[in-house]
């Protein structure tokens, strides 16, 4: 009768042994290979540090001009450039310039890595249904598992610092670009692919002349989402010791500083909006050919 009232769970000691065994195995693995893993990520650390120093070290007027120029190049919208300059000036005036640069550096590098990793994986996924069946659930896990859960092994592996923070951000932010690259390629009109086949295009030629260009709007939507998700992760990354706006938010939470929290939070929002609008407009401009529709 007790079977109905009490769940037939593992005995407490068995469970403890079970967890201990896995944790132990993982720690042994780290013990054996930890140094190697750390060395593997060294170049990334140097690159990120270098990039941070570059952004922080550049005099603010030059930095402002560069960002304004990039926004202009991306969006060709004067309003957006003005908005960007105004909000950056305000953020700087409120004493958050340096932290903004740290956050900018982290999200930029994270996004670049997401693109470099994500697009090839997306292509692979589009090429074979089996690949898609394998990768899709992994992406689902990456997007739904609470970030704190995978922080644990990352910390055990790499300790606290920039690289673990970056990895946490990438794990969370890379799925959209993979998904949308895959989707974009799969949505390419089969008639056009058939035409490429009929002209004797090799798989590589088809990829570069037909599939990638036609998937570009979707890939771009993926990049956009990736940037947004990377920004959303900066507070979590600050738990791993990444400095920047996220760390200030964390401090504000710990000390119940309302103003500090909102200031830094809104600065993150401002960066997000600038990134979002610029990349969206850029994506649209790439699609020049779809603007004029003949009736």
């Amino acid at each position, binding site marked *: 009768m007790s079977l109905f009232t009490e769940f037939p769970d593992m005995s407490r000691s068995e469970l403890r042994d079970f967890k201990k065994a896995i944790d132990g195995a993982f720690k042994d693995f780290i013990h054996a290979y930890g140094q190697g893993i750390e060395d593997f990520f060294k170049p990334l650390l140097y690159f990120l540090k270098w990039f941070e120093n570059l952004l922080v070290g550049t005099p603010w007027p030059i930095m402002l001009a560069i960002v304004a120029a990039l926004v202009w190049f991306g969006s060709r919208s004067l309003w957006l450039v003005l908005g960007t300059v105004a909000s950056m000036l305000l953020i700087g005036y409120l004493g958050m310039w340096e932290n903004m640069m740290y956050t900018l550096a982290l999200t930029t590098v994270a996004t670049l890595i997401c693109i470099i990793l994500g697009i090839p994986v997306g292509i692979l996924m589009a090429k074979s249904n089996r690949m898609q069946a394998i990768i899709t659930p992994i992406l689902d896990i990456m997007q739904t598992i609470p970030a704190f859960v995978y922080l644990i092994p990352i910390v055990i592996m790499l300790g606290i610092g920039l690289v673990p923070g970056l990895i946490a951000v990438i794990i969370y932010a890379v799925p959209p670009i993979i998904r949308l690259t895959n989707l974009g390629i799969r949505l390419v009109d089969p008639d056009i692919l058939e035409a490429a086949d*009929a*002209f*004797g295009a090799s798989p590589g030629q088809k990829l570069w002349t037909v599939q990638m*260009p036609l998937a*570009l709007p979707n890939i771009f939507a993926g990049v956009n989402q990736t940037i947004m998700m990377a920004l959303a992760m900066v507070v979590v990354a600050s738990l791993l010791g990444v400095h920047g706006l996220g760390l200030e938010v964390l401090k504000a939470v710990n000390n119940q500083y309302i103003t500090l929290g909102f200031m830094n939070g809104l600065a993150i929002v401002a960066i997000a909006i600038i990134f979002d609008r610029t990349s969206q407009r850029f994506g649209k401009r790439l699609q020049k050919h779809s603007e*004029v529709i*003949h009736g």
Partner: protein
Amino acid sequence: MASHGIEIKNLFKIFGPRGKKYIDAVMGGMSKTELNEKHGHVLGLKDINISMPAGQIQVVMGLSGSGKSTLIRHINRLIEPTTGSVVYEGQDVCQMSKSQLQAFRRHKTAMVFQKFALLPHRTVLGNTVYGLEVQGIGKDEAKRRARRWIDRVGLTGFEDHYPNQLSGGMQQRVGLARALTNDADILLMDEAFSALDPLIRTDMQTVLLDIQEELKKTIVFITHDLDEALRLGDRIAILRDGEVVQQGTGQEIVLKPADAYIADFIKEVNRGRVISVGTIMEPTPIEGDVIVELKPEDMLEVAAQVMAQQEEIRANVRDNTGKLIGSLRLKAVVDAMVTAATH
């Protein structure tokens, strides 16, 4: 000029995961419906044998679902056959390795599609160079050649337009220019003009005939329109449910339809435009004064017009070498134009 025809021999296509398994049943006479109902496979083509002449236009005609697209896609093997062969220049396309097939598609064939299938992100020029680009030909050379064909199909000045800025007729001109720029001997056209308005369609037929006059390619042209078939086809094959029900010249088909299905098909045809003077003339020229002279390849419509204009009821037929080869009476012309020939 293309010097080789395309020989299609004993070609079968059964769509479905285990097509090969049912090939014997189909050879033994199992019908399309039976195959579909009993085994869930679709009979696409059944024992196709067509010898497509070099340097001429072979039309394949049939109603929707008769297997026209399936057939034309076997010529460049966009569809794998279940059994059979497609021989060109002594080589069986169906036996080619991947790289041979790629080279064959690049250098020997070009294709024009019903729904145009242009690259939407490329301009007219960018689309037209596509075949050469795939072949690895340098940009400048490719553009130079492409411009010539853009000009030839009447799109000069539109080089930098994107496909969606063009009307359907213009888009298909791009499709044609893209195919012609490839400079391949075989031109495959799957209902290339079916999506166009009647007037533009006639226009495009004229463009094609003009170009063919000059290039003499081996063209395979798919259509479900009999008038188009008769106007373009040096030879016509008619498909029904994946089988060839009749093949021959347009005249042969109009004069001697193989069965009721085809007779029904050709009922509405303007016979005066299909049947030529040579087909119905008496082999003896009329002695003495005859005012009207015709050529054997003149169509009856023309003959009737000329004779009516001259108020003559007799005409002599003189061939290109200048020899009198026969004669014709107006009554015979009118009879052939209005009544179905018995067979």
